[in-house]
């Protein structure tokens, strides 16, 4: 007959049991987060708690930057002022032309009974810091749900497309860059109008065009802009410049790599485009009555 003495020190479950419990709970969280997106509210709740810590952690850097700004010389300020004035003057000329072109465009579209493009409203944001996850290319900007940002809005900088807002918190947003592995932008070659899809490769500073046939007309130096077909990115925004085209007859597709036009430096100013696409609603599903009738007849 087995007899064991009572436990002298009551310590609760053994470490291995506790580990098993933690592992099962972690796996449940992982699956729920990766597949079912159930944990949105948990994320928001914990993010609200973590936000003061993040602001606190970023405070020394912000303080140093402000002190550095305070000590800038008057000569450099004057030079920057002159440069900005010149640029504003040049932009004003282009803007006048743009307004005339916009009016003409609206007129022509009305003539052709084409759908109008809705003007976009923008939200100015600043990059707080680059994402710390080494497996994804993301940045964090300082405008969130409370400032009107919604998931899916495209983000641009003065030169080109930066990425797309993928997750919003009340006061912060996460932007996935176009260089992220799972991100694709439909683009169009400015020179000849060919359409392609530019996907990120997971590395900084390079994106690739996938599934381009070997004889497609892409050359080094071609400018790529968004084509607007997907309804997520407005058309005409610069995305990248083709940097390298490799046509090897032993592969099915050409290997085309491009350099993104937009720069993502540490302290950049970005614009979030609050753009809802003007695509028509999906057609209704057809009735599935025909096969049933056939069965009855036979």
């Amino acid at each position, binding site marked *: 007959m087995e007899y064991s003495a009572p436990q002298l020190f009551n310590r609760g479950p053994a*470490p291995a049991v506790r580990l098993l419990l933690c*592992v099962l709970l*972690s796996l449940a*969280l*992982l699956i729920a987060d990766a597949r079912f997106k159930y944990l949105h509210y948990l994320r928001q709740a*914990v993010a609200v708690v*973590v936000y003061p810590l993040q602001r606190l*952690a*970023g405070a020394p850097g912000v303080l140093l930057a402000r002190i550095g700004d305070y000590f800038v010389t008057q000569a450099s300020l004057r030079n920057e002022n002159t440069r900005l004035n010149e640029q504003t003057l040049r932009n004003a000329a282009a803007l006048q032309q743009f307004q005339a072109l916009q009016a003409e465009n609206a007129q022509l579209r009305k003539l052709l009974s084409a759908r109008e493009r809705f003007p976009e409203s923008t939200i100015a944001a600043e990059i707080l810091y680059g994402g710390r996850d080494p497996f*994804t290319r993301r940045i964090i900007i300082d405008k969130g749900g409370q400032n009107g940002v919604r998931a899916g809005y495209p983000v641009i900088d003065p030169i080109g497309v930066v990425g797309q807002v993928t997750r919003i918190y009340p006061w912060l947003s996460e932007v996935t860059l176009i260089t992220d592995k799972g991100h694709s932008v439909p683009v169009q070659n400015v020179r000849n109008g060919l359409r392609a899809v530019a996907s990120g490769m997971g590395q900084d500073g390079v994106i690739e065009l996938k599934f381009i046939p070997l004889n497609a007309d892409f050359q080094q130096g071609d400018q790529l802009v968004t084509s607007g077909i997907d309804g997520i990115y407005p058309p005409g925004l610069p995305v990248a410049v083709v940097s390298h085209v490799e046509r090897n007859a032993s592969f099915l597709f050409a290997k085309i790599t491009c350099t993104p036009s937009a720069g993502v430096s540490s302290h950049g100013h970005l614009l979030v485009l609050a753009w809802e696409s003007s695509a028509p609603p999906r057609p209704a599903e057809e009735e599935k009555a025909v096969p049933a009738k056939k069965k009855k007849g036979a």
Partner: protein
Amino acid sequence: MATREARPQQILLPVKPAFIVLTLMMALIVNLLPWSGLALAIKPDFVALTLLYWCIHQPRKVGFVVAFLFGVVMDIADGSLLGQHALAYSVLAYAGIVLHRRVLGFSMRHQVLHVIPLLLLNDIIVLAIRAMAGSDFPGWLYFFGSLLGGILWPLLSWMLRLPQIPKPDPDHV
């Protein structure tokens, strides 16, 4: 082989729980600093390091619950899959609790040799989870942070042991 003199064991004051919480929060804040560029690529995971220290030195006080909660907080702060750091930190806490008597018996140099594989295991678990979720291998530099964390272990041990060293009584000596 020269005989080594037995190191006199120092009697330490008990740890205050507030100090443990303070060190863990400081490690979290350092992890949340806006690291960028090379510093981001090679920085050690300070929360993992501090968690391992407390699991080894105070396994009764710091265990799975703390490790899991800090893992969830790190996941949400980093924006990664929810649960990857929780899993990795739980395994780290298990290793710390199971090995704590063994590790404390070694000299500081050999403790570093124990800590580095545990931190590398932490990295490998996160890498395995992300690989199953479809991410690419981020390069061998990804593991450098754990090596750096192991090298920082003696400094961390010394720093976190400072409040426990008994102050000499001024009236007595």
